[in-house]
């Protein structure tokens, strides 16, 4: 009975209750959506890094990173790549020849990372081929075709069809200089990456290195991000002498920024809930102050204080739950709607891209967040109702009746 009374009480003053419910609904919806946006941005950053070059998992010789020199190659790299390719839930493996060298043009030179790839394999692992702004991604007959970043092209004053000379140490410590033809220029969004990464056909590079194919890096793409951890564990067990790293281990900064987003979004939600809390408390207080006479009368005719307390509490709970429900529904709907097409934040394209995200963000929200949110709302409602309810039971019935 108390329950229905509480419910009816709320709707007695329609406009007031509606405002509160809407406030809560909007606050929650706003909070959920912006969180979804933030997490989407974090994911976008992660995905951008993975798609650009990082891939899901990488395998190296443990001493490779020290010098990134040609001699630190994975023994039997090609057959290893083949066996990884046959693993379940692995959709792409690229066995890369990768070492450092110097790129020169007639005007200047710059240190770069030289990568020899099989384009068809690499396409299954990364999406850099989609970021070509000029020319093609190896749709060329030139054996010495090279794909370079836009920033490097600018630095060395190169264009499509320009000649670029790469200098590096060969297999026997000798210095090798090869001329390559720029057939594609890419813009990945990270100017640092663009400036220092060049890609060649692996078989050409092998030929230049005396006919041997050296594999320094094996990059793996899994079917879904959920498979990354288990597959990494499997690979670590299978190849204990090699350095197997998930993308988080390989590039902790990327993981850092995205997890930071998630921390912030939780915090932000707290702030919103605080704002909502005060909103409810205010409303309930007002409502109690308004109904001084009525409440006084109830107490005078014998209604126990505890029951009034519970009634007020219930009222605030109903308000919050209605608003909360509406907010969650709105949030779920908007996120579901925008999830597929994404939100176009081209306005912020420059800063987004430099930060590693793309201009189109796909909001997403993990299930745990919805659940924790419901818990928070109920909690908030109870806390919000306490003060007004206390106020209500401390009324003196006689005085209350007589007040206006």
């Amino acid at each position: 009975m108390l329950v229905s009374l509480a419910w009816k009480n709320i709707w007695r003053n329609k406009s007031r209750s509606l405002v509160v419910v809407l406030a809560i609904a909007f606050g929650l919806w706003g909070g959920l959506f912006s969180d979804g946006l933030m997490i989407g941005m974090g994911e976008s950053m992660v995905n951008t890094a993975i798609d650009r070059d990082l891939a899901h998992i990488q395998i190296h010789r443990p001493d490779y990173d020290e010098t990134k020199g040609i001699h630190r190659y994975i023994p039997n790299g090609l057959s290893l790549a083949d066996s990884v390719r046959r693993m379940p839930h692995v959709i792409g493996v690229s066995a890369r020849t990768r070492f450092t060298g110097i790129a020169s043009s007639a005007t200047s030179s710059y240190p770069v990372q030289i990568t020899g790839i099989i384009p068809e394999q690499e396409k299954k692992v990364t999406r850099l081929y989609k970021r070509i702004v000029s020319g093609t991604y190896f749709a060329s007959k030139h054996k010495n075709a090279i794909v370079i970043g836009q920033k490097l092209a600018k630095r060395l004053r190169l264009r499509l069809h320009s000649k670029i000379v790469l200098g590096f140490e060969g297999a026997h410590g000798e210095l090798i200089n090869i001329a390559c033809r720029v057939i594609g220029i890419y813009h990945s969004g990270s100017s640092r990456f663009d400036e220092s990464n060049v890609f060649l056909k692996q078989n050409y590079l092998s030929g230049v290195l005396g006919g041997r194919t050296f594999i320094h890096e094996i990059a793996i793409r899994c079917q879904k991000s959920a498979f990354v951890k288990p597959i990494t564990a499997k690979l670590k067990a299978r190849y204990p002498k090699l350095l197997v790293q998930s993308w988080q281990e390989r590039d902790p900064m990327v993981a850092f920024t995205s997890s930071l987003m998630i921390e912030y979004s939780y915090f932000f939600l707290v702030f919103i809930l605080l704002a909502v809390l005060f909103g409810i408390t205010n409303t309930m207080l007002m409502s109690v102050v308004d109904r001084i006479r009525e409440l006084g009368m109830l107490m005078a005719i014998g209604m126990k204080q505890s029951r009034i307390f519970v009634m007020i509490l219930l009222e605030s709970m109903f308000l919050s739950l209605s608003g909360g429900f509406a907010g969650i529904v709105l949030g779920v709907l908007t996120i579901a709607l925008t999830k597929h097409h994404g939100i176009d934040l081209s306005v912020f394209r420059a800063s987004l891209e430099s930060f590693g995200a793309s201009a189109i963000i796909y909001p997403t929200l993990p299930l745990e967040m919805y659940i924790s949110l419901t818990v928070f709302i109920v909690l908030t409602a109870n806390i919000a109702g306490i003060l007004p309810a206390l106020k209500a039971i401390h009324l003196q019935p006689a005085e209350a009746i007589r007040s206006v």
Partner: protein
Amino acid sequence: MYINLSWRNIWRNKKRTLIAVASVFFAVIIAVSTRSMQLGSYAYMIKSTAHFYTGFLQIQQKGYWDNQSLDYTMDADSINYQTVASVAHVTAVAPRLESFALLSYGKTTRVGQVIGIDPIKENRATNLKSRLVKGRYLNPEDRAVLISQGLAKMLNISVGDSLILYGQAYQGQIAAGLLPVQGIVKYPVSELNNTMVYLPLPVAQELYLTGNRLTSLAVMIDAERHLDFVKSHLTAVIPPHYTVLDWKAMLPDLHESIQFDNVSGKIMLAILYVVIAFGVFGTIIMMMNERKREFGILISIGMKKIRLIFVTFYEILFISFIGALSGILGAIPIVWYFSLHPIHMSGPAAQVYDMLGIEPIFCFSTNPYIFLNQALVVFIIALVTFAYPLFFLRRLQPSTAIRS
């Protein structure tokens, strides 16, 4: 006259007024706290990164930053160290002579960054001494080097061994030196950990044959918000062919990511404002409805509607003003407390902060502008809610109002 009336009106119903003021009060506190945390985090990131190595500002000769060559060094006597150090808000000034060199020990050779420092001043600026993990720190009269851990490992060199430094000196001459390793310093960031060699300034100047010259003066300040002030004052006290670079130019990646974060931060703040607005709005609605009868009577005894509108406007003005002012006063102790006792992070984000050698905390900013800005915004929001009373009063029918 309206002002008098509205002022008295407010205090007639203390409880109601207090509740309305409270909604503005809490709104300001929440808005200030949110923004303070956002700005505090940025300032913290900047400070931590600046303290690694670059400093907040650097005084250099014009052209040095783009060319990074010893041809652009400054005469140490041309800058009055005391004058620079005594600019307000400057906490430390560290003179440096930097260049790169080949570092060799035994059969291994690596390229590294060689930095001549004033050990005492450098420590005050970047806490270099605290990074020492082996051996002894440098004294100004020492003829020895500190080497970063990663580099020491690569060269297989330890404390007591002699390091060869070889490279390009000033004006085309050769820099060649053999110096003992006195200590090993550790950086959590591998870029720094794998490249740094420190030596006392006079030794570096002798090595690079520059005489008493510097490549830069790194400047530390007490808080990021004083950056522009310090920059302009520094520019005023240095010779015209020198320039002052700030961290934004030296750390463009950080600058971009903060700008990006700031944008999303502002979006979130906007959502918060709307929630707040609803809260305040609700309070005003309740106020209006509750006084319906009173308004009806006033109008029927002859008060012109327009006057009533004015009076109500002033009431809202007062409420908003009091609420905003008290909100500022209330927010001060909160922000103050958290700025001295930052909230600790946990989870994956904390781990990554740890990895970077930065303490994982949420910092709060005590910049007074935050208080003023946020209070102003909330104040304006509160004023805007006047739209409802306006609408309400205009529609009011005295006859129906009295009977409610």
